[in-house]
């Protein structure tokens, strides 16, 4: 029974040790899977039909559903963030589902979730400054410049809370599954884990992916001053 993240290799980069963890390796595997799948799909969709069917239909449905999710959270004016969130959504979803195959989900490592949350923080600042310029920066000093530290902490708290929500949920599910596999009697381990995988890896995995993306999108939308189709 081990919940720890193994270190697989240690690199020396400019005199600094860099640990290559199982999370990073699993991330690369998932990335490779997603990129190869994307390339294959791209090749297969080179000559799209005007009446979609099969793979084209499925991909169009996925993108349309995803765009629909974007539209519920942000204004069409900042739909360009969809490129980023599509890959984040796909990565988190596949990571969460990878638990079914016995992988240690990369999202069960705070480094992954915090990295994604930090990306959200960067995106919030970029979108906020791009759309509202000085007005956005001014918000850090409102209602008075004395509140700047509090506003800054509030801003930094967003990605931290976002990262811990996803990390905690996935790690919790993984711990439960590990406990079941380690401690439950052999006859329980045959069928029972199927339901637990369905709940913790599939259902909660999909749910947490959705929650992470929607909350993150809401932050970005609020920074741009346009949330859920209502321009300020």
């Amino acid at each position, binding site marked *: 029974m*081990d*919940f*720890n*993240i*193994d*270190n*697989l*290799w*240690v*690199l*020396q*980069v400019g005199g*600094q*040790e*860099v*640990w290559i*963890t*199982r*999370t*990073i390796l699993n*991330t*690369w595997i998932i*990335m490779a899977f*997603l*990129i190869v*799948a*994307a*390339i294959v*799909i*791209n090749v297969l*969709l080179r000559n*799209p039909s*005007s009446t*979609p069917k099969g793979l*084209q239909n499925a*991909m*169009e449905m*996925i*993108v*349309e559903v995803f*765009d629909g999710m974007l539209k519920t959270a942000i204004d069409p004016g900042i739909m360009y963030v*969809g*490129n*980023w969130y*599509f*890959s*984040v959504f*796909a*990565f988190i979803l596949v990571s969460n589902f990878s638990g079914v195959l016995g992988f240690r989900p*990369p999202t069960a*490592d*705070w*480094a*992954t979730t*915090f*990295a*994604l949350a*930090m*990306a959200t923080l960067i995106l919030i600042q970029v979108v906020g400054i791009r759309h509202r310029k000085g007005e956005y920066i001014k918000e850090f000093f409102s209602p008075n410049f004395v509140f700047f530290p509090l506003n800054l902490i509030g801003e930094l708290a967003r990605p931290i809370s976002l990262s811990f929500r996803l990390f905690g949920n996935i*790690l919790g599910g993984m711990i439960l599954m590990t406990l079941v596999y380690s401690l439950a009697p052999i006859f329980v381990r045959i069928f029972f884990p199927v339901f637990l995988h369905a709940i913790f890896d599939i259902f909660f995995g999909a749910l947490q992916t959705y929650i992470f993306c929607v909350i993150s999108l809401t932050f970005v939308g609020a920074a741009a001053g346009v949330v859920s189709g209502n321009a300020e």
Partner: protein
Amino acid sequence: MSILTLAAALPEGRAFALDLQMFISVGIQLINACILAGALSFFLYKPVRNILQARSEKIESQLSKAETDMLEADRLKAMYSEKLEDIEKERLAILDEARAEAAQNIRQMLDDCRRDVTGIKERAFADVQKEREQLHLEMAKYILDVSMTMAGKFISHAIDQETQDRIFQEAISELETVPWQH
């Protein structure tokens, strides 16, 4: 850059820690996420969105064209309806005009006929009058000739030729002054 792969050299794994290695992992994951975002965006998301956009633009243009065609059809329909109404009005106007012209022509013809008839009648009356006068004159001449013949036969025995001519002239003069009864 050297890689240490000896198991003994590998640090022990951990579930969570807030140290430099964790933040290095965060950095690596951030780079991984950016690479993945770029790749998925380039190979999958954008192409599929382009397909969808191209289709929706095509459908939009078809709808727009259909709408334009519908408007054009409505406009043509209205124009043809108006033309049909105009044709009906024009037909009625032509008919009214033709009727009025026909009525005018009829009146004109009737007037001409009446005028002609009156003229013919007047000329006929004049001719009749003339013929009657001529007849009376010829009749008078005939009577006079007969009378003269009779009188000549009667008087030839009593008067000479000179007296006879004088009497004849006097009789003619009297006859010219006598008003003829019609």
